[in-house]
């Protein structure tokens, strides 16, 4: 278990955080490789099903990141998303998922430093919690 590395699914908005990830790469910033990025058109496109599916299929953590409020490419997608996320996070924690497993952030396409530091922060938070104990569907359990 000493070498255990968390697997984190990152849902990144095409218009900002995904760009920030690009910029961080171009700038050769160092950050942990644990986040598997999935590009979404907007945080407003996030469905609760995505997060639940990630958890059900064995993700140790989930991270959703989009544009700062007011900067949405579609003007207000992230405002709606913010309300959905608030209720979602509260409910999933109420049902027994550790608070440190689900993260949200606003990162603009220029904030590559914030991107790198958030990846570090999310990874260490999930790492501290260790592997998931329950809630992974049997078919997706890996014996490694």
């Amino acid at each position, binding site marked *: 278990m000493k070498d255990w590395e968390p697997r984190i699914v990152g849902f990144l908005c095409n218009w900002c955080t995904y760009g920030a990830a690009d910029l961080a790469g171009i700038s050769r910033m160092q950050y942990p490789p644990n986040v598997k990025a999935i590009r979404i058109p907007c945080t407003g496109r996030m469905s609760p*099903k995505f997060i639940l599916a990630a958890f059900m299929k064995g993700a140790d953590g989930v991270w959703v990141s989009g544009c700062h409020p007011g900067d949405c490419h579609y003007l207000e997608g992230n*405002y709606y998303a913010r309300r959905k996320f608030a209720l979602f996070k509260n409910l999933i924690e109420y049902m027994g998922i550790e608070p440190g497993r689900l993260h949200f*952030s606003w990162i603009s396409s220029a904030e590559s430093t914030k991107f790198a530091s958030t990846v570090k922060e999310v990874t260490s938070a999930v790492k501290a919690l260790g592997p998931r104990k329950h809630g992974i569907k049997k078919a997706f359990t890996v014996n490694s």
Partner: protein
Amino acid sequence: MSDYTAKIKEISARLLKEEKVEMVIGFRKGTVPMMNEPCFVKTPEDVKELVWDSNCGINLANYLTDRKEKIGIIAKGCDSRNIVTHIIENKVKREQLLIIGVPCKGMIDKNKITSMFENEINEVLEDEENIIVKGKVFEKTLNKNDVLQENCKICIHRNPVISDELAADLLDEQKDIDRYEDVRKIEAMATEDKWKYFEDLLSPCIRCYACRNACPLCYCPTCFVDESRPQWVGKSLDPTDTRTFHFLRAYHCAGRCTDCGACERACPMGIKVRMFTKKLEKDCLELYGWEAGLSLDERPPLDTYRPNDPEDFIK
């Protein structure tokens, strides 16, 4: 309760006779005790079937979805709030409806009563304060307040919020009710205990989807549990699938649930499924000051936003 029934019959007969509505949706006596069933009355002669007592817990708003005709509908407090939600969500038009409001004194919990007796119950009668349960060899009088549905005990909207006719005088609303005591108790638990609590809560679930079908909010053309490409929720009895189903069912009701208790009432296994929806209800109230179904002019919380919504959980 007989005066309620008489008044409901009178109003329904009048509306049908004057052809103001094509049908009235109400309750008639069921074939087993404590199970009134919904009925659609289409002629003035048939209004004699209608009844009102403490077994009318089914939410009639469920029968309004996508209807096009003129409808008279019997509505207690929670039904009326769900009718408002239906109108807001364009599932029915206000002009189509003649709402016969019934100030509600609470519905009784048939599971609770059944579990009190070993023998079969043949008849259940009631007066203002008491429920009289009769079997082949026994007869017992219960205090109605002791056997109310959990959601009725903590109800703070007993009077209909919109109505065109009233079947009785408005009641005083219950005051100083702590609606979220049980939710707070779970919130205070450690993460591991929360997980265990819901594991135990959901372990009897047989995935019959009765909670979904009884709910007036559940009207998606294809429910997420029936989607197969991609399949978000497995159909097995794997506890993870069951938990995901209950999570999403509740989450779909976020900001819309009126705590009518239809889901819990419908559950054949007696699972307290309201424990999920109540948490969302509490959060909507605390974060956005929202109670569902009280006004036709306000948008539901997930259909609107404020620039300064709470976001301390976001980095």
